[in-house]
């Protein structure tokens, strides 16, 4: 299932990146670069429309064009590409989820991440620097070890480290002199980070080269349906557009968009906060997460510490939240890494995440023929971007789920086939 096949880019407007091209532009004052993707006017009709221009939506459009050879595809984005949760997450990638269904889905994504820069001819800066998840109590240790064993049985790498081994892997880690000492850690070496903006830009550029129309500043205001109930198209702030297939990839606003077609979802939207420090020299070698005292942290290639806080208690669409949520994460970071206590924070923000009752996503057909939804990623959608986009494109193109997303239906809440990943989702919510 690896997507390491290079697709040919028929559109001559796209300049392939190579070491030579970078050198040539560098020596000529960086002049002569062209736009990475077009800004077309929306056409009257498309074979398929994706609502939402984040990584998931752009990726789905890319795979619709590249793997399923759909003639015409448009991505409608109400703001700008990657301006929502794709640009607001903490860029962590891992696949150490508990259940087989989830392990298959998230590991599908990790395998695509491993070849993505080559596939897209765009450096997404995927770095498999390892994700260390700390255990601070007997309960933590039992849960973590269960995850390690379940992952290994499912073919996903994960290993158990003693506190000393964890400290050797991440030297800044304080394992002893704290209120909740580190008793051990689970390490997924294939996990890591990627440059989140580059994921959106890379997919946008590659999709555009295959003829996908990426239409920014175009909010969907209604979903138009035929007399038989099936999808006929959408109403937008830039006029009506018809399409037989519409895929919704709208993250925190999925409920709002799907209500336009009369589809109610088991979602609640919460602000999830993150913050970054001032940039410093490379000091932090991996990703560290602690569910119990609640912090997760890595260092970007720019040098900023990227810190994930929790969700706010209440549902909201504000893209901000209470300062006490961020403070709580910083207290945990300072406890685990005393050397960061004098760092200043540069900025903080919130993204709106759509949370399902079982903390697993919905990637499925809906009761409306021709309408598909990829939502409910809650606090962990970024890591799944290529995998989710890939199986969502499959679902839209064939009107049936890929085997990997077949369990992630809307009906599982009615039929009792929940995929309960509350423990693996890492963020307390």
């Amino acid at each position, binding site marked *: 299932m690896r997507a390491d096949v290079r697709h040919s880019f028929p559109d001559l407007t796209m300049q392939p990146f190579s070491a030579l091209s970078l050198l040539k532009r560098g020596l000529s004052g960086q002049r002569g670069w062209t736009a990475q993707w077009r800004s077309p006017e929306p056409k009257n009709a498309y074979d398929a429309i994706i609502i939402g221009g984040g990584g998931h939506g752009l990726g789905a459009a890319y795979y619709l064009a590249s793997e399923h050879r759909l003639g015409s595809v448009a991505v409608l984005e109400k703001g700008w590409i990657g301006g929502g949760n794709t640009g607001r997450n903490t860029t962590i990638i891992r696949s150490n989820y508990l259940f087989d269904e989830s392990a298959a889905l998230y590991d599908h994504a990790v395998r695509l991440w491993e070849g993505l820069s080559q596939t897209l001819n765009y450096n997404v800066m995927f770095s498999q620097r390892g994700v260390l998840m700390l255990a601070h109590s007997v309960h933590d240790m039992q849960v973590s070890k269960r995850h390690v064993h379940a992952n290994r049985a499912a073919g996903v790498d994960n290993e158990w480290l003693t506190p000393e081994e964890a400290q050797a892997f991440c030297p800044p880690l304080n394992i002893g002199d704290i209120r909740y000492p580190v008793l051990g850690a689970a390490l997924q070496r294939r996990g890591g980070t990627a440059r989140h903006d580059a994921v959106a830009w890379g997919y946008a550029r590659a999709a555009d080269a295959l003829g996908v129309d990426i239409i920014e500043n175009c909010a969907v205001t209604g979903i138009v349906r035929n007399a038989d109930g099936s999808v006929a198209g959408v109403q937008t702030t830039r006029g009506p557009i018809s399409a037989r297939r519409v895929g919704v990839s709208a993250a925190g*606003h999925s*409920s*709002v968009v799907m209500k336009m077609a009369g589809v*109610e*979802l*088991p*979602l*609640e*939207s919460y602000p999830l906060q993150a913050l970054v420090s001032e940039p410093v020299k490379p000091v932090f070698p991996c990703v560290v997460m602690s569910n119990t005292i609640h912090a997760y942290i890595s260092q970007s290639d720019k040098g900023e510490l990227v810190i994930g806080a929790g969700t706010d*208690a*209440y*549902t*909201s*669409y*504000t893209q*901000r939240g*209470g*300062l*006490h949520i961020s403070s709580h994460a910083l207290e945990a970071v300072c406890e685990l890494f005393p050397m960061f206590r004098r760092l200043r924070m540069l900025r903080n923000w919130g993204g709106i995440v*759509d949370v399902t*009752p079982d903390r697993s996503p919905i990637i499925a057909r809906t009761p409306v023929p021709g309408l598909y939804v990829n939502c409910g990623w809650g606090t962990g959608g970024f890591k799944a971007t290529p995998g989710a986009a890939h199986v969502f494109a499959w679902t839209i193109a064939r009107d049936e789920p890929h085997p990997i997303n077949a369990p992630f239906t809307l009906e599982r*809440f*009615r*039929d009792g086939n929940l995929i309960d990943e509350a423990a693996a989702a890492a963020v307390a919510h």
Partner: protein
Amino acid sequence: MVTADGLRDEHVLLIQCPYCGERPEPEFVYGGQAHIARPQQPAELTDQQWTDYLYRRDNTRGPHAERWRHTHGCGRFFNALRDTTTDHFLATYRLDESPPRAPGESAK
């Protein structure tokens, strides 16, 4: 101080407990969407109706009726009407009261 979108320039939400007055958000626990009544005859529901009761929420973008509990105060539950696009509390009211109809009617 009040900002342009009507919010107070504070770092935490201030919530008007109907019994104790205005207190900071960390004193409270959020209780989800309000006015969801447990079905009188659960055995008579279809699977879909029971699913809706358990899992479906309005996830409103705009004025949202919701439960809060003043856990680190009087300990009592109450309801609030909050605009989820600004987090501005439009009103708080007791559990035995019906939600205020007009979103513009502020309790403050």
